[in-house]
């Protein structure tokens, strides 16, 4: 039904649809809205050919080196500047990550920098209203509140909730302020929502965070597996690389595990579509077949891993028939995928939110690592595991300790690691909270809710749309006894609830580094001045440290730097000898050409494409980042317990049995809801919603449902549908097709800053619960019910919907779907 309608629209609309934005001076090498991935440059086992993507609205007078920050791929790009304004971007051909290519968000997102509704002055809530204030007034108020709270409740009354959007230098500075200055364990990032499981899975298996592989593995891999990762939409430039491989000699076989028929799934050699919440049965089933068929590397397992027998015992019951019964994945398809995985000599696997935000998240992500380990497919070209990140600098939040980790992947349970940090920062070791795991974001919010945290400082994130169960989130952020500081570039649903709003500079307006999924570090140079009185986040944090008079133990300022480059140099020292060693890098070196993959030090002056080439992992007791957790309960293992089983460099093969999701469809709420992203938007659209072309390509939220369910509930394409869960209700226009019966999908980008006509944020419906190990919330399932709220009236949202459907279908056709 949907396909037919859309086909008509596309035939009628394409020129009008895709050319309406062209201005007179605009120049672009390709239309990335109409054709997301652009022209093919087929290749195999050689350097990925260059393709230079560029889009400018005027001819720049100069170009400034940077990297894209609208997903975690980390594409090298230059910012075009004319008369102090950004006028466009171009991909950097020299960069190993993208070889000149850019996706639609990269080519268009920069428009937001010059959006007329940028925040340009601090604001303070007075008499219930946010009113403009000076920086002195705003910062003094924050300092006064901080001191009052510390006096009365200690620094345990203060929490920080940051982002995956700032720069490395900013996170590191914030991390020291929180951990060594105030001494609060309550620091986390919204990375908890997107990449906590990636970090957790890497720690569980390899002893430390850090991706084993490199994007260059895609150049030669025979098999590529995407688990819960719609690569084509979420990482468009990585997908271009895969599309180029598919059109070149020796194309790879693709395995896609996703309940939806996504762009990525369309290209799969084998598409496994499990029921929501059944990743463990499918992955255990794949491992079971591989082991039973003897397709394992015994030498590698013996020399480089521990726990094989336990793994084998746990997965052994998951025969294909049982997997089919529980997950709905046909036995023959599971077998086909397992045999591909079991016979290939090279393998790249990627995992993302379909794993990380679902039931048994860490345990499932670890199973992906296990497939590589039992086949010995790691630490060499063509063999990569990308436990993907959602955000451009999520890796940095994790490395620097601005979240629930310690800087340099140090271990909070290891006293020596604490001593190293104390020495580096010249503070007493006891200042640094290490009596328990650092508080994760969901617990920080819970402490705010109960009143145990009195001040929450939010930077560059929008929890009032991105957290689960939004009714609860709005209520707790609005609490009288919680002082909320929000540092952002735009008015958001969260700034509306703040007591102080600080206007921040963004990408293009400040200098700093970002590290992507394959450990490539890029520098983003400042290209233009921030608008009005907006300041770089680094400057705001340093200003706070100075006003709080945070000192080291000799009475000198705790934060000893003023510029990003000085912060970077300090950070390098923090990484010396750790897995993420940056000591061989410098701003000068990063500004030369391509990004550089850490570790980069004396031994590897040009960086390192693969970790663990010798099969020695970061698990030794004195080196590892974590002493491990019980994968089912999250219980932390003690240092003594770990020392007893010290694997001394061998990787862990861990596994668990299946647990059904905590909320399942029932008579009252008979359907599964899953949520996710769209290709044209990022997060809560604070930037992409302000880039006209991106916003026009996906202007409104919708609910996707199967033709079967549409018929059952008498819903037609474009009808307004009421969707309710035990947490809340939203109204969305219907998009029928391309999804399994029993499951509905709502994109999570849409909140209320640009449209508060109806309840529409997907997270009104989602659950407050999280993975026991990674503490990542479960956004990928909830039980809901639906009913038709109104017929399609062919105006308002439904016109927007028709437009979106046209764009989606057009791109399906571009993929040859």
């Amino acid at each position: 039904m949907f396909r037919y309608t859309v086909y008509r629209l596309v035939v009628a609309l394409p020129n009008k649809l895709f050319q309406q934005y062209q201005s007179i001076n605009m120049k672009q090498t390709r239309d990335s809205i109409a054709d997301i991935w652009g022209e093919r440059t087929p290749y195999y086992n050689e350097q990925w050919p260059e393709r230079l993507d560029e889009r400018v609205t005027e001819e720049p007078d100069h170009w400034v080196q940077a990297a894209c920050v609208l997903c975690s791929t980390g594409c090298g790009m230059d910012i075009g500047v004319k008369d102090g304004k950004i006028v466009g971007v171009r991909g950097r051909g020299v960069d190993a990550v993208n070889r000149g290519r850019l996706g639609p968000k990269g080519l268009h997102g920069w428009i937001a920098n010059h959006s007329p509704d940028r925040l340009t002055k601090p604001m303070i809530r007075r008499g219930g209203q946010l009113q403009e204030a000076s920086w002195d007034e705003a910062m003094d108020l924050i300092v006064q509140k901080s001191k009052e709270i510390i006096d009365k409740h200690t620094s345990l009354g203060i929490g920080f909730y940051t982002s995956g959007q700032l720069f490395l230098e900013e996170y590191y500075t914030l991390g020291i302020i929180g951990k060594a200055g105030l001494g609060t364990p309550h620091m986390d990032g919204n990375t908890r929502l997107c990449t906590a499981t990636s970090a957790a899975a890497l720690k569980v298996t390899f002893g430390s965070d850090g991706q084993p592989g490199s994007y260059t593995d895609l150049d030669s891999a025979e098999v590529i597996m995407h688990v819960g990762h719609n690569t084509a939409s979420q990482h468009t430039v990585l997908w271009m690389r895969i599309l180029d491989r598919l059109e070149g000699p020796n194309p790879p076989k693709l395995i896609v595990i996703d309940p939806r028929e996504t762009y990525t799934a369309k290209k799969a050699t084998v598409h496994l579509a499990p029921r929501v919440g059944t990743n463990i049965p499918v992955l255990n089933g794949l491992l079971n077949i591989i082991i039973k068929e003897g397709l394992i590397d015994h030498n590698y397992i013996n020399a480089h891993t521990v726990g094989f027998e336990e793994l084998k015992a746990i997965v052994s019951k998951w025969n294909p028939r049982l997997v089919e019964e529980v997950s709905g994945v046909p036995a023959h398809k599971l077998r086909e995928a397992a045999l591909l995985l079991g016979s290939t000599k090279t393998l790249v696997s990627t995992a993302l939110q379909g794993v990380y935000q679902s039931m048994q998240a860490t345990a499932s992500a670890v199973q992906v690592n296990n497939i590589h380990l039992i086949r010995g497919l790691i630490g060499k070209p063509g063999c990569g595991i990308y436990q993907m990140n959602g955000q451009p600098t999520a890796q940095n939040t994790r490395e620097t300790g601005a979240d629930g980790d310690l800087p340099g992947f140090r271990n909070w349970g290891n006293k020596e690691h604490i001593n190293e940090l104390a020495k580096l920062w010249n503070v007493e070791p006891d200042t640094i909270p290490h009596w328990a795991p650092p508080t994760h974001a969901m617990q920080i919010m819970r402490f705010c809710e109960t009143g145990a945290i009195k001040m929450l400082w939010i930077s560059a994130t929008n929890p009032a749309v991105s957290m689960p169960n939004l009714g609860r989130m709005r209520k707790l952020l609005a609490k009288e006894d919680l002082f909320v500081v929000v540092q952002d570039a735009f008015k958001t649903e969260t700034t509306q609830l703040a007591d102080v709003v600080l206007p921040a500079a963004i990408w293009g307006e400040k200098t700093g580094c970002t590290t992507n999924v394959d450990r490539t570090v890029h520098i983003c140079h400042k290209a233009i001045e921030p608008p009005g009185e907006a300041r770089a986040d680094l400057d705001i944090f340093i200003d706070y440290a100075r006003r709080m008079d945070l000192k080291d133990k000799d009475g000198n300022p705790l934060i000893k730097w003023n510029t990003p480059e000085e912060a970077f140099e300090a950070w390098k020292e923090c990484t010396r000898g750790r897995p993420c060693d940056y000591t061989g890098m410098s701003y000068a070196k990063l500004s030369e050409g391509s990004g550089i993959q850490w570790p980069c030090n004396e031994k590897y002056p040009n960086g390192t494409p693969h970790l663990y080439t010798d099969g020695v992992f970061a698990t030794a007791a004195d080196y590892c980042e974590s002493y491990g957790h019980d994968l089912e309960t999250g219980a932390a293992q003690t240092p003594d317990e770990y020392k007893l089983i010290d694997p001394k460099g061998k990787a862990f093969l861990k596994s668990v049995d299946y647990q059904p999701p905590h909320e399942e469809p029932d008579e009252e709420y008979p359907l599964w809801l899953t949520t996710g992203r769209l290709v044209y938007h990022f997060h809560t659209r604070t930037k992409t919603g302000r880039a006209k072309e991106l916003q026009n390509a996906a202007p409104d939220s919708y609910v996707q449902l199967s033709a079967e369910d549409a018929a059952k509930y008498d819903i037609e394409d474009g009808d307004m549908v009421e969707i309710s869960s035990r947490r809340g209700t939203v109204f969305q226009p219907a998009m029928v097709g391309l999804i399994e019966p029993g499951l509905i999908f709502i994109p999570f980008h849409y909140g209320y800053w640009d449209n508060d006509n109806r309840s529409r944020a997907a997270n009104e419906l989602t659950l407050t619960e999280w993975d026991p190990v990674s503490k990542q919330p479960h956004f990928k399932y909830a039980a809901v019910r639906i009913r038709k709220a109104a017929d399609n009236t062919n105006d308002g949202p439904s016109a927007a919907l028709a437009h979106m459907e046209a764009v989606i279908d057009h791109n399906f056709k571009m993929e040859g779907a």
Partner: protein
Amino acid sequence: MLIGNYLQLAFDAEKEAVKAFNMIAGKHGDEPDVYQTCQLLASWSQNHLNELKPWVEKYPARPDTTADKLERMMFDNEQKGSFALLRDLHDLWILVTEIDICWTVLLQAADGLRDKEMKTTFVKLQESTKRQIAWLQTRIKQSAPQTLIVGV
């Protein structure tokens, strides 16, 4: 032989544990991880009971001995909130730790009897109990500073 008396002690304690974990899950349902994990751990204790049953039947407690029960006031706190949670987790820890020492005692007996099957069973049960204790300790350690210092 008094093995049966210890088996009964463990059995009764596990019954109490199933009840207590479920009760704490419900009472502190606003703490999402407590809600879920306590239900999970209740199901583990239920599994322990199932595994124990044949052994309790094989070695019945001697009827002429007095009831071997440690009388105590536990879970008597009607209050909710972080302090009550800490106290409830503390009580759970005592209960489960008592079960842990039961396994140690019973394993000694299994050794003395050279009963391999009994030993295998109680090694498995003790491992599972220790995982319950580990979670309780982790959660208690996480709650303690905030509750005692900023507690509301």
